[in-house]
Each structure stands twice: as C-alpha cells, then as structure tokens.
C-alpha cells in the first residue's frame, strides 16, 4: 500500500453489511459533509449524467472524494471529483494532451486501457523508462496520437486506487462513419465498490481465502443431492472435489458480501436510468471497470446486437446475454419496440449480487428486476479435466476424435490417480489415455482412477454440455491425457519456450498434450490442468444451457479482414497458476517479483497460448499491442486488449509485435495482478 489509509474502517461497523450492500438510495459521490437531503438528491441526479469531456486538451485532477454508497461515509479516489471518472470523448486521428495533476498524498498514475500508444504514455509506473508515476502535487502531461476508435477506459495503475474509484470511460469517435447506425449513445460502466480498505480485503484473502464466499455448498445442498442422486451418486460426484480439497463454488474471490455493484456509479437501490423513444436504436457501451467482478449482462425483453468487442467492430451477433470479464468492453445496439421500461441487469458471476439500471421512455416507468440465477457449480472441465462434457470446444469438426485407437495406458504402479493430482503423474510421453467413459481404468497397481469415473461424468443439469447430447458424450477415445513431462520444455524461471512445431492451421483447435514447467510444482501451485481444451464456444460456468442465447468468443468475427495475415513466427505458452488456499498467483509458477521479463522481437508475429491451471477466470491484458484472438476464422480475426482465459482451459492469440519498449502484461483481477504479471520488453 503506497498511500495512507483513507478509511475509518473499524471492526464491528460491518455487522449488518448484507443489508447495506444493496446500497443507500441516493448514494454516490458528494462533496463535503453535512449536506442536506436536497443537495444529496442533486448530487445523485447529477450522477445520472456523468460529465463528458471532449476535445484534444484535458485537465484531469486525481483527488480524494467523500462518497456514501452503503450508508457509511467513505473516501474514494476520483478524477475531477467524479466516480466513475468523467467520460473522455476523443476523435480518431487527433493528438490528445492530458495534464493529470495528482492531489493524493500518494503516487498515482493513469493507464489508458486498450490504447495503442508509445510506451512512455502508457502510464504504468516502473515499467516504461522514465515514468515512475505522478508524485503528490505534481502534474504529468500525457500526449499521444489517437490511432483507433471505439469504447475503452482508463484507470489508475498505482496502489489500490482502481478499487477505490479511479476508473472512467473513453469513447473515440471514428474518422469514417460507423458501419451501423444508432440514435442514442450511452456508456454503461460496471464496477464494484467496497467500504473496506483494499489492503484489508487482500490480507483477509491471504488469511482465509474463502472469506467472502457465502455460497459454499451446505447441508441443504447435500440433502437435496442425496434425495436426487442417492448416497453413492452424491458421494461419487463430490469425491474428487473433496479429495482435491477444492470447492465447486469457488467462483469469485471477492463477492457481494463486501461489494456494492455499481452501474455508472449508481447502486442497485438507485439504478442508473437511460432514456429512449420507442423505435430508436440505442447504443450501449458496456465497460467492466470492476476490480474483481465478472458480470453476466442481459436486458429481459430485448435482443442485443453485439457490434464491438474491446472497442473493435465485429460482425454483429444477436444475443440475449453476454458475460463481460474484468476490463473488457462490449458495444451493443438495442431497439426497444415498446413504450415500456426495460431492466439492464448485470449479475455477478457468483450470483452474490448485481448492478442494474433501467432503459425507459419515461422516468415514471419502472421495470421489474429479474431474479438472480442460481449459484452454479464448477465442473470437471473447469479444472482442465476434459471429460467432453462442456461441449463448448466441439468446434472445428471432429478433429478431436481423430487418432483414437490408442487404448493402452501404462501408469507407473503405486501411483493413485486422484483428481488433479494426476497432473503430477508421469505418463510415458506420447501415451494416450483413452476411454474416459470406462468406470475404472486398469492400472498395474490395481488402483482405480478416482475422479474419472463415469458416474461423476454425469453432470447435474445446470452444468456443462450445452450443445452436446449424451451420445457424443461417450466418445472419448483420442483424448490425450497429459501430465507428461517433455524434456525440451524449458519454461523454468518464467521464460517462454519456443516451440518449433506450429500448428499448420491454428483454427484446428485440437488440444495437444499439455506440458507443465518444473516451476509449476511446489507449495505455491495447487493445480495443473491435465487436459485443458480450447473452449471458445463455452459460455462459461453458470451460463451453460440456461435457455438464453449467450455470447461466446467463438461468435467474435472481425468486421474487417485480419489486420496482419502472417502466420505466427513463434509460439509462447504461458500457464496461469496459483494456490487458491494460500492466495498466491503466478505465471508458470513464477510470480512477477521473481520473473525475468518476457522478451518479444520487434516485427515478429507471435502466438501466445494460455493454459489456465486454476479454477478461476483470468482476464489477461497485454498493454501496447493487440491480442488477435484465434476464434476459428483466420481471415477475420477479432482484436482484443483483454482475453478471458476460462478455468482449466486453453486459448491462443496472435500478437503483431510492433510497439517498442516495455509493457505490462497481467491478469486484470485486482488481487491477482500483483503476482500474475509479467513485464514485456519489445526490442
């Protein structure tokens, strides 16, 4: 923590927190103390329309600001006294100048998230040469050409200031007219506010990692399972998780227990309001500026046409719902046909709360707020054990089914294969493990492979298998069971490995055997995905088979042809690692403080493949360069700045390494970032 504690947080204040996290009506940012209710009202109303700053010249002041979202006064970190910070509206082709003055008692900074700009303007202290943050009382002048258009955002990259409110939207109007039309344009910034000091949140997570999780399975769930599945069914389903000491409800580290979820700075009690006239097309620019919260967004009664992802136009996709990872942005167009109010509903992934707003033709109309969905359970797929159960990855045809004749699998005797620990198994390289549907695998030692039994394989309704029927489910030969240690594989010390054999066609999403670096073994890593799959068309835990059309990464297709059609020259595989219980996060088992920078060559076309060796989603954000996400069609690769790597999955993207200098590369979950971070140097 690099600034003094701004909070008067005393133990005991939060006894009744659950009542408060819905928010205080008419809460929000206000200046001074002892304001009467009329000024509070005015402050709240003002918040409905956040300030928009336009032009090429901006003066931004970072300061402290009294706020009250929950009934308890707190101090937030804001820009020009506003939370979220003012909307910055730029024009593509302009050069913008931003004089940022720091009135905090601590060093600050602003990072322009998703912007392609010179390294020194990127705003991450200690990464680019010459930028060490903005000292108290000082003014730093950012100046850079705007070379893109769309919806982006900005936030502090210092201390815990982003969690305490320093984030705001950027809208860049394109030089050429958009390919779609709309009559109204709203920014919808989603965020999470806590009354606690973020330092306390972090230390609580270190002391008791499930501190904020009040959705664990309890007695009632057990009774329901026993009734539904019987004793042995229940036992089998839970056995592996219990053996592995992991929770199927480990969905979010920080939850609605402490968070009040905000939409454009409005609590759920207030709700943000956007007006429309019947028949108008409304553009909604969703930005997930939360520290730790993934939101599932829908507007009951309206189809949303997704026209841009991370600021970049895509071929429009019509959906009912989308999941927005931390730091992502999605632009959607809606066309309300009726003279009625609609709820903008953004529930947190773990269903511990929601942010909300209303689209309405009239302030007097209110829309019903939907019930939150039930709390989902993580599945085997979310642990990187491919049981063919998520169906998601079934993409380009039957690639996964080829080469299925290997059936023998020799496992050294004495090894028990239980749950994730089988990733520690040393299978002779090249061996395939087939027939996952067998209830038992014969092993020399006579041990059974628990956690792989067919009974567990049958997932309860909510989970898994969206597009897959049971017959497909029975097809597992050809699955490679990994955990093989290959010698060539030298990912130690966090260094990337260069792999000679690139996939000739990267849209062939056959998952190769996975290799785990020696640095991934030890007390700091509690899991290694044994069989991580590409799951681009998996909407993710809690959204599978929910009866709604949910956006997935497989839907993302660039509106324009691939910017850089070169095949990758080089491939880098990075594993996202951690120990949930000890609350430690790293890449390839090496945390930032111990890692060498990742080196990229100027001019190369690089493929980065992530393997997620944890049970959490990690939104990975590369600064300074686009992440060209391989979603299936190499001719229309969408460009993103933040790529969500689903639990236990793998995903790959291409990077045109065209930005010299040093860059940050990290998980955008606020309390993961400190360890799950790399410095990238391009030279």
């Amino acid at each position: 923590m690099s600034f003094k504690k701004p909070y008067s947080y005393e133990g005991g204040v939060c006894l009744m927190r659950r009542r408060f996290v819905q928010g205080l009506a008419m809460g929000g940012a206000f200046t001074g103390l002892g304001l009467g209710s009329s000024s509070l009202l005015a402050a709240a109303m003002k918040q409905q329309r956040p300030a928009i700053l336009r032009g090429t010249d901006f003066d931004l002041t970072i300061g402290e600001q009294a706020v009250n979202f929950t009934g308890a006064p707190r101090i937030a970190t804001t820009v020009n006294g506003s939370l979220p910070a003012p909307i910055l509206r730029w024009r593509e082709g302009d050069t913008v100048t931003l004089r940022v003055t720091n009135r905090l008692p601590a060093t600050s900074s602003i990072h322009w998230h998703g912007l392609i700009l010179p390294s020194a303007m990127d705003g991450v202290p200690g990464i680019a040469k010459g930028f060490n943050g903005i000292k108290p009382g000082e003014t730093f002048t950012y100046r850079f050409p705007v070379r893109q258009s769309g919806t982006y955002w900005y936030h502090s990259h210092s201390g815990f200031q982003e969690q305490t409110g320093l984030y705001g939207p950027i809208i860049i109007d394109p030089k050429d007219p958009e390919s779609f039309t709309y009559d109204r344009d709203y920014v919808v910034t989603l965020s999470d506010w806590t009354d606690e000091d973020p330092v306390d949140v972090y230390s609580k997570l270190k002391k008791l990692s499930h501190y904020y999780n009040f959705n664990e399975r309890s007695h009632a769930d057990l009774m329901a399972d026993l009734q539904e599945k019987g004793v042995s069914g229940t036992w089998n389903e839970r056995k592996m998780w219990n053996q592995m000491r992991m929770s199927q409800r480990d969905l979010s580290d920080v939850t609605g227990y402490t968070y009040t979820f905000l939409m454009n700075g409005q609590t759920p009690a207030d709700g943000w309001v956007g007006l429309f006239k019947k028949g108008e097309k409304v553009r909604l620019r969703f930005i997930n500026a939360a520290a730790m919260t993934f939101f599932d967004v829908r507007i009951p009664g309206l189809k949303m046409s997704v026209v841009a992802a991370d600021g970049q136009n895509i071929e429009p996709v019509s959906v009912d719902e989308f999941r927005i990872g931390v730091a992502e942005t999605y632009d959607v167009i809606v066309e309300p046909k009726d003279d009625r109010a609609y709820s903008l509903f953004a529930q947190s992934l773990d269903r511990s709360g929601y942010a909300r707003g209303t689209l309405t033709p009239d302030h007097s109309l209110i829309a019903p707020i939907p019930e939150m969905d039930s709390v989902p359970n993580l599945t085997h797929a979310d642990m990187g054990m491919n049981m063919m159960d998520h169906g998601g990855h079934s993409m380009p045809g039957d690639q996964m089914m080829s080469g299925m004749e290997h059936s023998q699998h020799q496992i050294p005797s004495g090894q028990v294969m239980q749950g994730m620990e089988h990733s520690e198994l040393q299978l002779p390289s090249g061996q395939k493990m087939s027939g996952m549907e067998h209830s038992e695998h014969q092993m020399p030692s006579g041990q059974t492979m628990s956690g792989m039994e067919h009974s567990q394989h049958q997932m309860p309704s909510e989970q898994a298998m969206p597009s897959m029927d049971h017959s497909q489910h029975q097809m597992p030969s050809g699955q490679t069971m990994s955990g093989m240690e290959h010698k060539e594989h030298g990912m130690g010390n966090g260094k990337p490995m260069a792999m000679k054999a690139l996939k000739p066609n990267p849209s062939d999403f056959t998952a190769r055997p996975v290799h785990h670096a020696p640095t991934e073994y030890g007390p700091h890593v509690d899991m290694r995905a044994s069989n991580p799959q590409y799951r681009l068309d998996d909407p993710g835990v809690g959204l599978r088979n929910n009866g709604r059309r949910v956006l997935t990464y497989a839907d993302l297709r660039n509106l324009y042809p691939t910017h850089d059609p070169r095949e990758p020259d080089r491939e880098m595989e990075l594993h996202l690692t951690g120990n949930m219980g000890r609350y430690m996060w790293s890449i390839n088992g090496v945390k930032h403080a111990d890692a060498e920078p990742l080196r990229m060559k100027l001019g190369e076309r690089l493929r980065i493949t992530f393997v997620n060796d944890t049970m959490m989603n990690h939104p990975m954000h590369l600064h300074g360069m686009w992440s060209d996400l391989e979603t299936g069609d190499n001719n229309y690769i969408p460009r993103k700045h933040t790529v969500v790597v689903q639990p236990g999955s793998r995903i790959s993207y291409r990077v045109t390494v065209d930005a010299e200098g040093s860059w940050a590369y990290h998980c955008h979950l606020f309390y993961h970032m400190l360890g799950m971070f790399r410095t990238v140097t391009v030279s």
Partner: protein
Amino acid sequence: MMKKIVSAMMAMWISGTALAGGADDPLLYKVMIDKLEIRDTDEGNALILDADAWVGKDLNKLWFKTEVERLDGATEEAEVQLLYSRAISPYWDLQAGWRHDSRPTPNRDWLALGFKGLAPYLFEVDASLFIGESGRTAARLDVEYEYMFTQKLVLSPEIEMNFHSEDDPDVGTGSGLSDMQLGLRLRYEIRREFAPYIGVNWARKFGDTADFAREEGGSTHDTQLVAGIRVWF
C-alpha cells in the same frame, strides 16, 4: 506477555505494509483464538484457551501456539510452542521449534516437529512429534472437520490424541496412548472473525496416565458441556 507479542507483531505488520508498496506478498499476521471456553468438568468449571498466532509471508511464517486450562483460579495445564513454519506442499506446512509446558510442574521442554495442513476430504490436521529431555518422546494428533449447516452455522467435530514413549509420573503422563479428547462444537459465525459456540467434549485418560490420575483422586473420563467463542483477526 501475549499483549507484548501481539503489539510486536502489530509493529512488524505496520512496517511490513509500509515497505510492501503493493507487493504481492506482504508481511501479515493472524491471531486465532480457536477455543476460549468454559467446560463443565467433574471437578468444576474449567476455563480453556486454545490459540495460535502467526506472523510471516506466504511460505514462511513464525508460529505461536498455546493451550491453557484453568480450574478454580489455578492453572492446571499450560503449554506454549514457538515454531518456524515452512510451506512444503500446496496444502502442508512443516513446523519445527520449541514447546514448553509450564503446568503441571515440573516444567518440561521439548523439541517440536510437525505437519500442519489440509488433508484430502478437507480434514484439518496438526500432527506433531515432541522430543523431550532424557529421551522422552511424545506425539500428538489433532484432526478437525467442518460441516456447514448453513453458510454461518458450522458443526465441527474434532479429535485429539496424545502419546508418550514412557511414564512421567511427576506430571502424570503414562506411556502409550495417554489421553484422547473428542469434541463436537456448533458455532455461529456472526461474522467470519467472531463466532460463539456450544458443544460437548468427551475426555478420557488411558493406561498409566489414568492410574496417575486415580492416585491423585482425579477423574479418568468425563463428558463435558462447553460454551465459548472463536475469534480471529
């Protein structure tokens, strides 16, 4: 003493956070008063304290453990352990250090070596080996489980067993399995850090330990109702 340790830890914590500057692995401390309870024993109401504290970083910590039993205003049993704790696997810490028993008298000092962690199926285990003076050795196994009735109402069965290599009549312990306690406590977490509880504790002494107790006129087995609080910060 406790106060001093806590304030020393506080000082370390404060300087730690100041130095950390946003680092991923700050110096932290945790004090866990696992049991502060009244037991209705055959001999009267006993006051029990069972507490731990640690200060350190992710993988290396300094641990302090204490168990105290007071009866009728007199301390019957008191033990402290000061341990270095090192994470050796995802779920297990190796702990080594010093154990001092100040009650019953005479004092006993031990080298302590143990494993503390989470076993498969989510059992919390603390297993220790103690090497005392003149070749005495002892072992202790403590296993606890948490069953969640609701998100806040937790039933926690626990078993503790003590073994000794030889008789030590001065302090009343006999060789072999000396004593065992089975506990069942139901706590309500008003918040994570604060939970009152009620429960039952079944205690039994075996072999020579039981004989020593009988000679002293004490009981060898007892079923006790307990009420207390569990607090951490």
